[in-house]
């Protein structure tokens, strides 16, 4: 056999297991245009839905006249809230314990809100008919400022009138949603009152949008003969969607099949449930035909889930030597018209309480007030775990502001406050147990890699030249050390709508030694089919190329909570390893039987079990698989399959050290990134090439957010950035070169030590770009300005500092 002449290194390489930069198996179809996205689905007799949307941010809906629309040939139905009410579907529950109108029920609360749903036998006819639905509105006063919302008499949510108790405790005002607190208020305020130095700042993380390349959509198909509903859609959590559809529609869960086909990016935008899904399901049930709904780019930006919009008032206290003694934060969270955040139920402000960051801060307090405004609902985790980018941005700005106050180098300030390696597992003041970390090593590696001291010297020279009139450019050095909290999460404290946030993997080894694995997650570009096969390859010893991976079909995949919050590797990746180990345990018994030795006398060796001390006596996994199915083995039932449902004991805490160097043209406000160094520590690295791709993608989205991307409203609640002309999406032209690096600090509680990486670069990237902009102007007295740092805002900063003469 060929095997026998191969070295252990060759046998390991054959597996393409963990640590291998295996090429993405998905890309074969994606690069040839053979992906299968929801809009590629075509079914006989399929109908098309389109929405009539509100042009107003706050208005009463006086009447809806469908007549002209229904008169067009090909129009099947025009649904309004009145039509959905008898089914109890004119409102739907949100993931945050609130409820949301499916179609406008008497009023609208944001521009772009769904008012009527047109169904036609042709996509173009549906659009024509939507234009002919006559809606009479009576405009109401618009509230776009969350601080104003808490003062005004204007009531946004009349349906909640008199309700002083919300899903997350008492409501203080008719536009107030919840107050959420962590840490110790009195102790923190006492520390701040007695501190040597206190820096205080309002840190605003503006409203933006995940804006995936593929917008949201679905095809609902009710088979009236079998009574089964099949729902294809852009779902980051197909099983959760199945359960929610069952709960709100009354259709038994076994009669619902949810399928997430290929998904063109999610970034949190595709976690929640949208009116388009509900209306399509209703339309299919009523007509008995498949109904497709695909939103366009403007609808996606205006109405489906936004991200961020956190006003974070902070105070940070330190000794005069720079040791941080306390952190205080009060956040005003603008949730829009409905609270449709996609957070674990017990965490209405997500994991914002990771805002002590990478630092050993003994005392801290956080309060978050959620507020209704006349903006689109959402508040999803855009390429981050729940509210973790907000937390990272907050602490990394507060550190910079404190460094200014202390007149201390910000790199050194970080270094003296990092949680030390010997403090892990570390209990944070706001309630988390950090699993592992080695921040000093990562930081020193980063500082050495970029030549930090030389950069500061160059910056000083540049500043001197600027002041001497030799240049109009300023150099900024942005630093960030972030700690994420990902992998939600332990069922004891993490659920969404009561659904525990475990995840799952089922593996079937075929008789010839290849395999099929199914997971409860769903890839949206992360490369699961590539990386999870690598975990199995290393755990079981069969080549990754011989493993098919399937996700996204609730009829076949084991139950799981889906992919977002960097949870796939920490949770489903752990389930995969554990399922693999179950198979390996059975394989060990089979091998022992075949080798005629005791179970304990064989050991796993790359792709086989060998007799201890006699490596020439072995059975390969291929041989074991065949025997498992085809040989009668006493005491062992046939087959070689396993399933694992993994409830993680803790979150994982990836971290990283980033440095950005940019040059600012003070006359035009343009900023050019000349260097970006990103060191990520995501624990055990499964596929270094995919990690690098993830880091590049996340940094580019971070660049977008920090430097220009926003959902902006005017005072009338009109969306000013509803197209890609104004909503900044970087192209290759705007994207700088990235220098990636890593350290490896495995998670002690994860079966393979992996922590997750897809969101780290966004969490760390945004503060890093922003800190660089701030740093460029630091010598002129700037302490804090707000993102996005587009040309105008940078120019305004320069202008305000008197740099235009």
């Amino acid at each position, binding site marked *: 056999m060929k095997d026998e002449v191969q070295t252990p290194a060759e046998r390991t390489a054959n597996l393409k297991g963990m640590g291998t930069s295996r090429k993405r198996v998905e890309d074969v179809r994606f690069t040839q245009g053979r992906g299968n996205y929801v809009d590629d689905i075509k079914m006989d007799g399929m109908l098309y839905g*389109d929405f009539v949307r509100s042009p107003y941010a706050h208005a009463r809906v006086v009447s809806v006249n469908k007549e002209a629309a229904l008169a067009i040939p090909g129009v099947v139905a025009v649904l309004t809230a009145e039509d959905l009410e008898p089914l109890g579907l004119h409102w739907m529950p949100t993931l945050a314990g609130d409820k949301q109108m499916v179609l406008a029920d008497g009023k609208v609360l944001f521009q772009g809100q769904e008012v009527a749903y047109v169904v036609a036998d042709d*996509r*173009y006819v*549906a*659009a*024509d008919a939507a*234009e002919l639905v006559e809606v009479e509105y009576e405009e109401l006063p618009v509230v776009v400022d969350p601080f104003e919302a808490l003062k005004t008499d204007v009531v946004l949510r009349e349906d909640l009138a008199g309700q002083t108790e919300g899903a997350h405790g008492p409501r203080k005002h008719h536009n107030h949603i919840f107050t959420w607190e962590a840490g110790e208020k009195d102790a923190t305020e006492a520390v701040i009152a007695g501190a040597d130095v206190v820096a205080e700042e309002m840190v605003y993380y503006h409203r933006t949008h995940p804006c995936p390349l593929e917008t949201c959509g679905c095809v609902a198909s009710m088979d009236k003969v079998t009574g089964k509903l099949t729902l294809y859609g852009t779902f980051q959590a197909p099983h959760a969607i199945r359960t929610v559809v069952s709960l709100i529609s009354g259709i038994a869960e076994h009669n619902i099949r949810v399928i997430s086909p290929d998904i063109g990016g999610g970034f949190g935008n595709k976690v929640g449930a949208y009116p388009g899904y509900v209306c399509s399901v209703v339309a299919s049930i009523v007509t008995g035909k498949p109904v497709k709904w695909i939103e*366009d*780019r*403007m609808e996606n930006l205006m109405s489906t889930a936004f991200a961020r919009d956190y006003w974070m008032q902070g105070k940070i206290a330190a000794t005069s030597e720079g040791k941080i003694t306390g952190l205080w934060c009060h956040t005003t969270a603008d949730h829009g018209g409905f609270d449709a955040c996609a957070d674990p139920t017990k965490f209405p402000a997500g994991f914002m309480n990771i805002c002590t960051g990478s630092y050993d801060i003994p005392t801290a307090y956080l309060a978050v007030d959620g507020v209704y405004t006349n903006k689109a609902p959402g508040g999803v985790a855009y390429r981050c775990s729940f509210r973790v980018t907000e937390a990272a941005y907050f602490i990394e700005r507060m550190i910079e502001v404190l460094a200014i106050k202390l007149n201390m180098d910000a790199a050194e300030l970080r270094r003296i406050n990092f949680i030390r390696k010997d403090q892990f597992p570390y209990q944070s003041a706001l309630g988390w147990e950090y699993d592992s970390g080695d921040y000093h090593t990562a930081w020193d590696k980063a500082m050495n890699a970029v030549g930090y001291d030389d950069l500061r010297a160059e910056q000083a020279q540049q500043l001197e030249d600027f002041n001497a009139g030799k240049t109009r450019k300023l150099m900024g050095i942005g630093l960030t050390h972030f700690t994420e909290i990902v992998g939600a999460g332990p069922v004891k404290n993490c659920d969404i709508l009561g659904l525990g946030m475990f995840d799952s993997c089922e593996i079937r080894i075929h008789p010839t030694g290849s395999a099929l694995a199914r997971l409860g997650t769903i890839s949206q570009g992360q490369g699961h089919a590539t990386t999870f096969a690598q975990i199995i390859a290393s755990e079981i010893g069969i080549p990754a190329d011989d493993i098919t991976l399937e996700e996204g079909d609730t009829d076949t995949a084991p139950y799981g909570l889906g992919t977002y919050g960097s949870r796939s590797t920490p949770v489903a990746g752990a389930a995969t390893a554990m399922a693999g180990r179950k198979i390996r345990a059975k394989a060990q018994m089979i091998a022992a039987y075949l080798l005629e030795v005791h179970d304990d006398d064989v050991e796993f060796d790359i792709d086989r079990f060998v007799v201890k001390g006699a490596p020439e006596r072995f059975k390969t996994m291929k041989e074991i698989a065949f025997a498992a199915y085809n040989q009668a083995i006493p005491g062992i039932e046939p087959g070689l399959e396993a399933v694992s449902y993994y409830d993680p004991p803790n979150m994982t805490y990836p971290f990283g050290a980033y440095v950005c160097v940019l040059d600012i043209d003070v*006359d*035009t*406000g*343009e900023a050019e990134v000349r260097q970006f160094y990103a060191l990520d520590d995501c624990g055990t690295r499964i596929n270094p090439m995919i990690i690098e791709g993830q880091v590049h993608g996340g940094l580019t989205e971070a660049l977008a957010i920090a430097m*220009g991307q926003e959902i*902006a409203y005017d005072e009338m609640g009109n969306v*000013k*950035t509803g197209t*890609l*002309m*104004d909503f*900044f*999406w*970087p*192209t290759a*032209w*705007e994207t700088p070169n990235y220098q990636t690096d890593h350290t490896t600090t495995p998670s002690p509680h994860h079966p393979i030590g992996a922590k997750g990486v897809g969101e780290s670069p966004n969490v760390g990237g945004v503060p890093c770009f922003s800190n660089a902009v701030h740093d460029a102007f630091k010598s002129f007295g700037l302490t804090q300005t707000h993102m996005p740092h*587009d*040309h*105008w805002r940078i*120019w*305004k900063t320069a*202008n305000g500092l008197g740099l*235009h003469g």
Partner: protein
Amino acid sequence: MIPAGFEYHRPADVASAISILKQHGDEARVVAGGHSLIPMMKLRMADLAHLVDLQDIGEMKGIQVGADTAVLGAMVTQHEMITHEGLAAAIPLIREAALQIADPQVRYVGTVGGNVANGDPGNDMPGLMQCLDAQFELAGADGSRTVAARDFYEAAYFTARDDEEILTRIHIPVPSAGTGYAYEKQKRKIGDYATAASAVLITMDGGTCASASIAMTNLADTPIWAEAAAAALVGTSLDEAARAAAVAAAIDVIDPVSDNRGPVDFKKHVAGVILRRAIDRAASRAS
């Protein structure tokens, strides 16, 4: 983003296209590259019953470069302008400007005729053509006429072209040898309209500026040919005072509006910076 229904026409010559326009009046519009019109139709902001596609009209294509004049067919794409060596040698300003329009995919399809005829103040070619003193040839039912680029633009999307006329060709005087040129543009990202852009031509005679032409883009509801700004340079040695005077004169005649790119004071400041850079570059190239 689904357009309303329309009738699609694809005539093979200018006369047929004009007769279709004549037949349908303001119900019909011509389309060249479609980068402005098609999105407007998808947004249902342009509502038209007849779309007249000009891409099969051979007589509206091609680039001819003569000793004194270059003639561009209206259907010449930005990509063709960039890659035409004769045009680049005769009027390098065109290549420099065209390379700053959007991205290669857009430039393969976008045409010079569509860019100048639509009257969109954000387009780059109108200001460029004013700077170059181009003449637009308009074909109508009763024959052709020419209108100077500098007289063509009346307001945003309103031009001297009648509804039943088609802009067929652009005649551009070839600048004399040694003319300095520059097209300078600030934009937020690839594919965006200019925050401010400016086209500059400068000829020198000995150490003195013999002639100059300056146009500003997306800083008013039409392109601005800044005659006084150019005049501030002519007869000078292009010293600091002259350049500053030209910038001041240009800022005086622009009238930008506040939008997502920024407010008026920012745009005026940036316009001055951009123009100054264009003057400096053009001056450095003039001989």
